[in-house]
C-alpha cells in the first residue's frame, strides 16, 4: 500500500479565493492511500518546501502529490524538493488547481468539487508511479547559427569567443542582413556600415567560425547536444576558393537585374557581389537572370575572370554538421503595404517604404545619398511620413507594434531636413513610442531642432494630383481634416516574420505564434530558449526588435548556447518508452511511427518447450527517445508503454475522474 502525502497550496488567494481549501483537505484525508495531507499558503516557497521534506520523513511518505499551480510551472521545483527528502524525484504528481481550476471558475462550489477531483486523479496516478532514472548523453561542442544578420553575427562571435566552434549559415551571398542596408542608426546617427562591417570582418577572420553563405539549413535531426544539421550550399557557379572578389566580371556582365539590396531601386548584374563590403567577398551568379543560363550563350564572365573561378556546372552541395546547440537568427521581412488601397496598393512610385528610403539616403545607395523621387528623380520639397502602416491594424495588417518605426521615422525626418534645405516634413502618427535610452531626446530633436511636423491621426487616402500626391488624413488634436500635397510619401511598414518562418520553425521543431514569429519557451523567464531543448532564438525572428535589443538578445542566446556547450554530458529524459519483451510480438509497427528513429529491432533468445527459440522484439534507444508515446498506441499488444504516462496511470486518472 503506497503512502501518499498531499500538499495543497493556497497560492495566497489565487487558489484559496475560489477553492474551499478546508473542504478539499477533508475530502483528501478520506482517500485510502493518503496518509498525510496539509495545506500551505505558498507551497513553492522555502517554508512550503521545507514542510514537504519534513512530512516525507515524519510520515514515511513514498509518494507526493502537490496540488498547486500548473505542473508546467513548478513540477521541477517539487521534484527537486522530494529528491532532497530522499525520494526518487519522479514519485511526484502535481494537481493543477490554479490555471485549470481557481482561475477559470467563479462558482466556489463547482471549483471546490473540481479541485477534489483533480487531487483524486493525481493520487490515483501517483500510486502507479515507479522510480525513474536518467542516463547521460555526450555534447557535441559546436553551435550552428542560422542567419547572418546582426543577430547571427553577434551570437556567432560571442559563442566563438567563449571557445566553441561555430558554423554560421546565411541564405544570401553575404552576411549583413537588413542592418547592412541601413544608412544611419538611431539614436546616435552613426552610420550602420561603419559599426557593422568591422563585425562582419571579425566573423570572417575568427579561427573558430566557419561561414556558409548562400546556404540554407535543409534538415535538423537529433536532439539537444547531438544535432545533425544538413546544410544545402547553393551553387554560386563560382569557386569560392579561387574568386578574389576583384569584380571585373561584374563590370563586364551585360545583364541588368533589379538589385534586392537596394530594394529594387537600383540595378545589379547577374553575376554580383551584393554590396562592396560583402563578407565573404565572392561573386555569385544569379541563374534566373544570367544570359548564359537562360539562352546558352555569353560566358563573358568566364573569359574575363583571371582567377578562373567561374564554374557554370557547379552543383548544390549538401553537407552535414554535428552540433550541440542551434541559434535561430533568421530575422524579419517588411510588411507588404499593397493591401492598403487608400495608399495606392503600392502603385504610386513615389509612395515608398522606410527601407527604400534608407537606400535613398545612403551614400552607397542608388542615388549616392541624394533623396530623389523614384518617379522622376526630382528632389522632393514636401515629404510625408506615415507610421503604423500594417502595425496595430487588425483589419488589414497585424495587431502588434513593430517597435522600431517611431524611431527610424524620426531619424528619416532629421535626415530629410538635413539633406534637403527648406524641405517640409510631416509625420502622421497614432502614438510616438520612444522607450529606450536616448530615444525620447532623439525624438525631441526631430521636432524641436529639425522642425518635423507631427500630425496625430491616420491617413485615410493618398491620391495623385498633377504629379504630386495629395495626402488626406485627420488631425485628431485640432479635430480637423489634414490635407498635405506631398512630393514623396514614406510608409513605416510593419516588421513581419520571414515568409517561410513556418517552414523554419518546422525544420527546427520549434513552435511559432499566430503572427508567425518563433516562440520563446517563456515570455519573461526563458526569453531566448525555445520549447525544443538546445534551440535558441536571437533577433527579429522572435518578434520586432531594433538593433540594440537584437544585439542584447543575440548575446543572451549565445551565452545560453555556450553554457550548454560547456557541459561534458547531458541527462537523457527519464519519461521514455519502454518495452515489455514478454508481450512484444516484434511487429515493429512502433518503429514506423517513431519520429526520432529511437526504436530498433533486437533479437532475444528464450526457452520454449525446452528448446532455445530466438525472436525479434522492439528496443528503445534511451538518448533518442523524447517520450512522445506515439509507439504506445501503435502497439496493439500493449507491450510498449511510456514511463510516467503509462496506460495504467492514464486509465487510473480516467477512472478517478469518473468516480
Amino acid at each position: 500500500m503506497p503512502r501518499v502525502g498531499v500538499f495543497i497550496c493556497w497560492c495566497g488567494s489565487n487558489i484559496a479565493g475560489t477553492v474551499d481549501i478546508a473542504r478539499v483537505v477533508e475530502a483528501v484525508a478520506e482517500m485510502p492511500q493518503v496518509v498525510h495531507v496539509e495545506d500551505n499558503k505558498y507551497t513553492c516557497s522555502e517554508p512550503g518546501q521545507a514542510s514537504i521534506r519534513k512530512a516525507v520523513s515524519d510520515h514515511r511518505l513514498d509518494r507526493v502529490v502537490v496540488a498547486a499551480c500548473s505542473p508546467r510551472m513548478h513540477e521541477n521545483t517539487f521534484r527537486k524538493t522530494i529528491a532532497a527528502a530522499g525520494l526518487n524525484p519522479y514519485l511526484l504528481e502535481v494537481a493543477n488547481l490554479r490555471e485549470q481550476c481557481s482561475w477559470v471558475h467563479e462558482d466556489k462550489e463547482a471549483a471546490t468539487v473540481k479541485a477534489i477531483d483533480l487531487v483524486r486523479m493525481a493520487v490515483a496516478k501517483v500510486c502507479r508511479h515507479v522510480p525513474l532514472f536518467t542516463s547521460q548523453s555526450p555534447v557535441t561542442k559546436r553551435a550552428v547559427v542560422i542567419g547572418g544578420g546582426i543577430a547571427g553575427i553577434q551570437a556567432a562571435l560571442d559563442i566563438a569567443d567563449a571557445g566553441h566552434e561555430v558554423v554560421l549559415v546565411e541564405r544570401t551571398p553575404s552576411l549583413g542582413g537588413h542592418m547592412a542596408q541601413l544608412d544611419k542608426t538611431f539614436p546616435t546617427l552613426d552610420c550602420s556600415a561603419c559599426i557593422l562591417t568591422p563585425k562582419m570582418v571579425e566573423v570572417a577572420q575568427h579561427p573558430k567560425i566557419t561561414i556558409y553563405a548562400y546556404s540554407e539549413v535543409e534538415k535538423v535531426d537529433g536532439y539537444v547536444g547531438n544535432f545533425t544539421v544538413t546544410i544545402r550550399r547553393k551553387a554560386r557557379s563560382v569557386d569560392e576558393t579561387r574568386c578574389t572578389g576583384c569584380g571585373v566580371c561584374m563590370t563586364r556582365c551585360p545583364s541588368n537585374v533589379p538589385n534586392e539590396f537596394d530594394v529594387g531601386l537600383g540595378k545589379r548584374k547577374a553575376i554580383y557581389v551584393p554590396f562592396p563590403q560583402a563578407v565573404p567577398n565572392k561573386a555569385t551568379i544569379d541563374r534566373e537572370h544570367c544570359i548564359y543560363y537562360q539562352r546558352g550563350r555569353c560566358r563573358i564572365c568566364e573569359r574575363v575572370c583571371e582567377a578562373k573561378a567561374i564554374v557554370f556546372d557547379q552543383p548544390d552541395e549538401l553537407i552535414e554538421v554535428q552540433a550541440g546547440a542551434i541559434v535561430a537568427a533568421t530575422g524579419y521581412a517588411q510588411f507588404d503595404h499593397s493591401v492598403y488601397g487608400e495608399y495606392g496598393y503600392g502603385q504610386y512610385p513615389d509612395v515608398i517604404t522606410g527601407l527604400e528610403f534608407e537606400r535613398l539616403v545612403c551614400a552607397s545607395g542608388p542615388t549616392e545619398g541624394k533623396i530623389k523621387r523614384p518617379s522622376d528623380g526630382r528632389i522632393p520639397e514636401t515629404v510625408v511620413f506615415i507610421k503604423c502602416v500594417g502595425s496595430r491594424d487588425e483589419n488589414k495588417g497585424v495587431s502588434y507594434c513593430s517597435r522600431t518605426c517611431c524611431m527610424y521615422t524620426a531619424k528619416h525626418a532629421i535626415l530629410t531636413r538635413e539633406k534637403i534645405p527648406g524641405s517640409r516634413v510631416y509625420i502622421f502618427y497614432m502614438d510616438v513610442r520612444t522607450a529606450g535610452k536616448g530615444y525620447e531626446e532623439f525624438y525631441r530633436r526631430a521636432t524641436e531642432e529639425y522642425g518635423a511636423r507631427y500630425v496625430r491621426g491616420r491617413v485615410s487616402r493618398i491620391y495623385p494630383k498633377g504629379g504630386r500626391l495629395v495626402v488626406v488624413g485627420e488631425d485628431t488634436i485640432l479635430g480637423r481634416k489634414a490635407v498635405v500635397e506631398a512630393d514623396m510619401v514614406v510608409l513605416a511598414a510593419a516588421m513581419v516574420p520571414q515568409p517561410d518562418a513556418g517552414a523554419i520553425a518546422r525544420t527546427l521543431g520549434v513552435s511559432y505564434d499566430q503572427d508567425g514569429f518563433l516562440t520563446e519557451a517563456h515570455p519573461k523567464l526563458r526569453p531566448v530558449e525555445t520549447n525544443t531543448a538546445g534551440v535558441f532564438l536571437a533577433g527579429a525572428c522572435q518578434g520586432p526588435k531594433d538593433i540594440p535589443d537584437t544585439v542584447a538578445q543575440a548575446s543572451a542566446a549565445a551565452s545560453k548556447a555556450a553554457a550548454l556547450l560547456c557541459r561534458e554530458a547531458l541527462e537523457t529524459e527519464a519519461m521514455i518508452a519502454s518495452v515489455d519483451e514478454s508481450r512484444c510480438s516484434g511487429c515493429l509497427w512502433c518503429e514506423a511511427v517513431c519520429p526520432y528513429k529511437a526504436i530498433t529491432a533486437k533479437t532475444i533468445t528464450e526457452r520454449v518447450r525446452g528448446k532455445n527459440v530466438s525472436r525479434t522484439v522492439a528496443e528503445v534507444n534511451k538518448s533518442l527517445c523524447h517520450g512522445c508515446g506515439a509507439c504506445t498506441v501503435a502497439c496493439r499488444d500493449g507491450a510498449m508503454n511510456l514511463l510516467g504516462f503509462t496506460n495504467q496511470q492514464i486509465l487510473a486518472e480516467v477512472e478517478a475522474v469518473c468516480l
Partner: protein
Amino acid sequence: MSVAEAPEERAAAEPESEAWQPKIVAFCCNWCSYAGADLAGTSRLHYPATVRVVRVPCSGRVNPRFVIRAFQRGADGVLVAGCHPGDCHYSTGNYYARRRFLLARRLLEYMGIDPERFWVKWISGSEGPKFAEVIREMSAAISALGPNRKAREEE
C-alpha cells in the same frame, strides 16, 4: 442527431437532477493544448467547471481505448486536444492521432455513440481563448444531449 431522432434522444436525456452537470474528460497534449488551458487560466477566461484535464505528452499518446473507458466509467463527453497539424512538439504525433480518431469517431458513431459526445480539437499554446470556447461549446452541446447512458456501467 437527425431530426427524427430528437424525441427519443430527449427521452434518453432526462437529466437525473436539476443540478446535473456534464462530466467531460479532456486529454490534452502537454505542449499545446495543456499550455492553452493554462493560458486560459492566466488570462482569467471563465468556462464551466465540467472538464477534467488528463495531461498527456502528445495527442499521439491517446489510445482510442481511453475514450471508451471514459464513457464506460461515466463520462458524458470526451475531448482529445493536441497541437495544430504541423506544430506537434514531436513533429508528427498529431498526424497519427488525426488518422486514428477520424476512424475511431466514425466507428463510435457507427456503434451508436452520439458523435457530439466525442470531440477532437487542435488548440495551440497561444489559444487560451479557444480552449475556453471549446469547453463552453462542448458543455452546451452535451448538456443538450443529457447524461450519457450508452456503453456506460451502472453506478
